[in-house]
């Protein structure tokens, strides 16, 4: 049973990681690429960690794998935010097909604090 779960989870994880990488290549600009890189790669890697938990149980390996999941959740989301905000501040425009940009107004009003 745990072996079936292990293979299922690790397969799903690698598949989602692959989708994330394809997205990274296909999508047009940095913000859209971050979408695919953050979501797919985080869930994919969490699936791989969960598969280790299914394989080894709550022993040494399993606990560490379990601990990876919340750490990855916090770090990857914060990194995505920092990258998106940083690239906007650095002057990278949105893709030309974008339909809306509310942030440009806020950008003009906000004093830059260093």
């Amino acid at each position, binding site marked *: 049973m745990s072996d079936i779960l292990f293979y299922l989870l690790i397969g799903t994880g690698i598949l989602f990681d692959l989708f994330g990488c394809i997205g990274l290549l296909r999508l047009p600009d940095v913000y859209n690429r971050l979408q695919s890189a953050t979501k797919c790669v985080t869930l994919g890697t969490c699936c791989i960690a969960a598969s280790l938990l299914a394989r080894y149980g709550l022993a040494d390996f399993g606990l560490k794998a379990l601990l990876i999941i919340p750490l990855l959740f916090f770090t990857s989301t914060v990194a995505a935010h920092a990258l998106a905000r940083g690239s906007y501040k650095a002057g990278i425009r949105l893709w030309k097909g974008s339909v809306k940009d*509310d942030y440009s107004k806020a950008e003009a009003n906000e004093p830059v604090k260093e």
Partner: protein
Amino acid sequence: MKYIAYFILCLIIWFLLTARIYLENIVAGILVSGITTLFFGRYFIEGVGKFLEPKRYFWLLVYLIMFIWECIKANFDVAYRVLHPAMPIRPGIVKVNVTIRSEFGKAILANSITMTPGTISVDLIGDTLYVHWINVFTDDPGKYSRIVSGRFENLLKKIFD
């Protein structure tokens, strides 16, 4: 008070990480947690008395289940957009108002938005959250705030406020 809560949290993470309980390990854990608390304790969240209220944990559980479901949906959504030959995207940055009081709640809301279908949070200025959305299908601010943050906001208010 918040230093004590932070110390206990550090200690729990230490024991999860090492997964062994004997004397040297406990002493090392207390030492490491103490040093960490000394340096980073002041950045910890305010109002740690909230940790002791059981009904918050119940809502946390509800939130986690909902979050995992949204997360899986998000992945199929991205996979569909990426693999579709025509790439059906209409990206844009939209403005959403948040009503949560606590700072940590806001941070968790922004993180949840990043992990849910089609949205990543770009910046948080005051009570306004700027969200990059991969498929802007409506121009009505009320409608998209409900879609972007409505899923989690009420639950997170119950947990953190």
